[in-house]
């Protein structure tokens, strides 16, 4: 059987107490929300905290609040299934809700949280394997080893950003609240991530993500399109999040993020530039989509063929743009 390694389980009642416990144990401790990312990783010994700090008892992280401006603030411990079922979110944030509904399976969405999804570990064919599997070919640099099996000459890890909500949340320019020993701070979601498969977050390990703030609806249209082998279970091997701000029919600003195509949700900068000042015609969509092949830095470390994944990036970007109409 695949068992969890031994650890001490902590169940603090407040965010401040959780941060204190995490600080007391340093690198030996990790937070756990729904555990649907951390526990499989612990069973495969990819992550091996000896202290696990559960956020399950912290009531303040569970609320969904509609703000005065019509925007929505979600606690980090809000379940994915709660988001799917929330009438206001369904009405005003269909792209975000769609991304959530595309995650894993209904059973896992009854357990997984939005906070855990935003902080999901990066993934790689050579990393998401049992300890024995990884040992048999020798460990890679993301855990216990020194080499990268995908790009053996590379000094860095190319593990893949695999959360479905991250491309949308970054495109929307949503913000997140973090709490650490030095107090609280807020970031635009895009600033939470780094282009590195190992250090994929800019936040300090002890910082707790407390809330996600979605911008007020109106003036923009968003979408999310996902590529995967099966219609359920599978992580995205390409996930396009788009958000277009409009004045009448003219696009005034465009954010297009490519998930599953690198270690962070990569901005398709040329695509974005080609959209601003234009109307969303079929020609503009096709031309803007074509520009998305270059930024898609797919590597041979996920499901499906690496060249094909890169080749279909324009198609998926075009579909995402069409869905914004």
């Amino acid at each position: 059987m695949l068992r969890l390694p031994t650890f001490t389980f902590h169940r603090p009642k407040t965010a401040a107490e959780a941060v204190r416990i995490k600080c007391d144990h340093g690198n030996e401790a990790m937070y756990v929300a729904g555990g649907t990312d951390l526990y499989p990783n612990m069973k495969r010994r990819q992550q091996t905290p000896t202290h696990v700090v559960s956020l399950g008892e912290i009531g303040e992280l569970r609320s969904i609040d509609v703000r005065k401006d019509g925007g929505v603030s979600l606690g980090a411990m809000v379940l994915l299934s709660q988001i799917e079922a929330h009438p206001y979110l369904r009405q005003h944030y269909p792209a975000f809700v769609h991304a959530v509904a595309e995650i894993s399976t209904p059973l896992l969405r009854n357990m997984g949280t939005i906070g855990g999804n935003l902080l999901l570990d990066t993934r790689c064919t050579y990393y998401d394997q049992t300890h024995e599997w990884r040992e048999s070919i020798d460990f890679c640099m993301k855990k216990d080893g020194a080499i990268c099996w995908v790009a053996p000459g590379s000094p860095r890890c190319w593990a893949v950003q695999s959360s479905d909500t991250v491309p949308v949340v970054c495109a929307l320019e949503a913000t997140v609240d973090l709490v650490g020993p030095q107090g609280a701070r807020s970031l635009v979601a895009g600033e939470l991530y780094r282009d590195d498969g190992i250090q994929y977050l800019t936040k300090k390990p002890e910082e707790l993500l407390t809330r996600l703030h979605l911008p007020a609806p109106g003036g923009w249209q968003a979408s999310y399109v996902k590529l995967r082998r099966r219609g359920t279970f599978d992580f995205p091997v390409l996930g396009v999040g788009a958000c277009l701000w409009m004045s009448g029919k003219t696009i005034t600003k465009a954010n297009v993020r490519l998930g599953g195509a690198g270690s962070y949700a990569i901005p398709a900068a040329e695509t974005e530039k080609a959209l601003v000042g234009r109307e969303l015609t079929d020609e503009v969509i096709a031309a803007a989509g074509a520009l998305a092949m270059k930024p898609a830095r797919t590597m041979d470390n996920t499901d499906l063929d690496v060249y094909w994944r890169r080749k279909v990036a324009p198609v998926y970007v075009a579909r995402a743009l069409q869905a914004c109409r």
Partner: protein
Amino acid sequence: MTDPGKVLATFFVNGERHECAFAPHKTLLEVLREDLQLTGTKHGCELGECGACTVQIDGVPVLSCLVVALEAVGKQIRTVEGLADGPTLHPLQETFADLGAAQCGYCTPGVLMTAEALLRRDRCPSRDTIKQCLAGNLCRCTGYLKIFEAVELAAARLRGEPAEPRKETIHGS
């Protein structure tokens, strides 16, 4: 805080209290099967990838292989052993048996727990709703068709309709 070693806790499973001592890093699946001898719940992948271990916690179907048992203390746990009412099978169990919706049977406890939660929420689910709802329970034998038909038939019987399986389902077409 709980130290490594064993902890003592009380679980409510299928309406009964169970006190038991177990290692605090055990999953709910491991405690159910190994400490409470409730082996109806199956272990498959143990990584969230198959649904064989599905149980209900406070009425919601979840994967017991990814729940630390300590998080389930004080909550109402329901397993496949709690579906029948004494000697009377749950309508889902009846229709799964009658229609051949269980072949090797390994996925069946998990499928039943997911489907039962659906039928409590939706008395008349469409085929598409049933498919979506069972999208986290893999079955390697049936090809799913008989599972969907069995859920539909059980739903009809739970609504009080005198529904019978289609002839094609039992005898083939």
